[in-house]
């Protein structure tokens, strides 16, 4: 009985810590948004506005109030879903972001699938062959993926696979003449095109997706490989692995039935984290591939200094990260008998 209470206490504590983290996130974005030397009012009214309009906007933005009051307003706005208007598009920022998000999620999901399918077997393979040549080969291969500047690799890959070999689609999510052919229902092009039965669009989309997703996946597989390897080494050094061998299980059975089972939960955590950090690579690769997603939206606003949009993007990424962490925590609780 006391234990269930303790666990309940843990869940409440976790919820509390999430709320505190979210609050901290707001503080951080608020201050970053306000510490810019560039004048936010000028950004809105332009260089040759009159003093009067300037004052008006200055007041409207609440910049004449004490900082803490500004923060309260900011918090109220955020909590009511009011993230302000984008200077560039003139639309509410949140609407813009919801519009571009599916493209990024599609890319990132595809990439994480590639990363996990590449990273997990490689990690296990390396651990099993520790300090022998397969281990070294996997290490160099995965470190290579981890070391490449992804924006550059993207450009080179475009030159080679698109411009010279013409194996894959080029920039964007699909070929030019398909744009607008499929209704945006979910925003995920692969799903939308399948639903509409437009197989040509589907293939074109897949053709465009494959190159950036593979590059992203490869770069994230480094992390997955490394962690898989070290988790696996941990497990292979455990005594229960010897027990399994003594029972007469083969090396392969021991590895997959026993040791691998014990790292599944940790792998879920790692993949969730890797998914989050894929968004980072996405910012750069979307710029290179003109992928109309979240990353492109962020960078184009960065360059024109639209802090409203930028900070909202940052905030959302923070929330996604916290959500992923929470998710992996929950999965941990569900899958590990020791935490049940």
């Amino acid at each position, binding site marked *: 009985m006391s234990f269930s209470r303790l666990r309940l206490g843990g869940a409440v504590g976790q919820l509390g810590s999430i709320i505190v*983290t979210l609050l901290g996130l707001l503080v951080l974005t608020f201050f970053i*948004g306000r510490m810019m*030397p560039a004048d936010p009012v000028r950004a809105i009214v332009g260089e040759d506005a009159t003093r009067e309009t300037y004052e008006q906007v200055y007041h409207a933005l609440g910049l004449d109030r004490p900082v803490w009051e500004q923060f309260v307003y900011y918090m109220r706005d955020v909590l009511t879903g009011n993230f302000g208007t984008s200077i560039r598009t003139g639309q509410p920022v949140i609407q813009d972001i919801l519009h571009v998000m599916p493209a990024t999620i599609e890319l990132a999901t595809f990439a994480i699938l590639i990363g996990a399918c590449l990273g997990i077997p490689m990690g296990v393979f390396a651990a099993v062959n520790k300090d022998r040549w397969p281990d070294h080969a996997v290490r160099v291969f995965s470190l290579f993926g981890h070391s490449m500047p*992804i924006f550059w690799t993207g450009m080179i890959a475009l030159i080679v696979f698109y411009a010279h070999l013409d194996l894959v689609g080029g920039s964007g999510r699909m070929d030019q003449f398909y744009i607008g052919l499929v209704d945006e229902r979910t925003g995920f092009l692969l799903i939308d095109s399948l639903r509409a039965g437009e197989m040509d669009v589907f293939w074109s989309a897949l053709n465009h997706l494959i190159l950036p997703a593979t590059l992203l996946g490869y770069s994230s597989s480094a992390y997955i490989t490394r962690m898989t390897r070290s988790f696996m080494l941990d497990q292979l050094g455990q005594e229960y692995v010897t027990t399994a061998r003594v029972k007469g299980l083969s090396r392969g059975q021991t590895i997959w039935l026993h040791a691998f089972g014990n790292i599944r939960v940790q792998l879920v955590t790692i993949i969730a984290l890797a998914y989050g950090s894929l968004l980072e690579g996405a910012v750069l690769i979307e710029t290179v591939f003109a992928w109309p997603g979240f990353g492109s939206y962020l960078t184009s606003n*960065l360059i024109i200094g639209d*802090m409203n949009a930028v900070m909202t993007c*940052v905030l959302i*990424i923070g929330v996604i990260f916290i959500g992923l962490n929470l998710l992996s925590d929950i999965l941990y609780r569900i899958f590990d008998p020791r935490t049940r």
Partner: protein
Amino acid sequence: MSAAVETHTLPGWLNALKNILLFLLRSPTSAFGLAVLAVLILCALFAPLIATHDPYVQALGNTLKPPGNGHLFGTDELGRDIFSRLVYGARITLTIIFLVSIIVGPVGLLIGASAGYLGGKFDTVLMRITDIFLSFPSLILSLAFVAALGPSLNNAIIAIALTSWPPIARLARAEAMTFRKADYIAAARLQGASPLRIIVKSIMPMCLPSVLIRLTLNMATVILTAAGLGFLGLGAQPPLPEWGAMIATGRRYMLDNWWLVTFPGLAILTVSLSFNLLGDGLRDALDPKQMNKR
């Protein structure tokens, strides 16, 4: 007395350093890392001697020349020698790595070790703060900082430093938490050692190896982040020969003039890879588990 200790430990230190270097040289991958690092440092130190041209002088009659004819890696859209710009770019890269590391390493180590050892409220507050920072991929947070501070090399360094101490602190804390329960810490407490003394003399030396490893691996990330910022036009500003910025300007001409983007990219890749390999080698060389065995 203390002098006796001093003379005793100094050669010990050098000896350890020598052993680590020898260990690293034994594996081809980390030896490669060391070699690249050496080349990078030499380039940065002796850039004027190594470079064949002035990296800033434009020669508008000599633009977009392919490699050869006195230009090892060709020339860019303003006729500047790419090889020379790469050599001078090493200075920028090294400056970024160096500044970020000497800010982030000690800060992360001290904060993390203290939080891990002291626990309690201090730890909770600290971990909340790092949680918040860790809620972002480092590039995105750096982007936000640079966007707010204004794009420049210095601001890029500040932004990268601001975003890369939390993982180090987190690591040092995790390490410190495993050591705080050790009997030798209990023994030190029973001898009346103050918390500060325990942190500095007993906890930090134990966290140091993994922090060093992490810092080395972190350098690879720093290089990529800095290059990414440069690429987006938010890092070093033209005409500085920063490698990421070189790729960004070369991008417009890349379909016909492959050398513009290829060489700076290779430079970034090689240096970043070498730090990763070096960090990996250090992990084996400094592995505390292996040290305890012997």
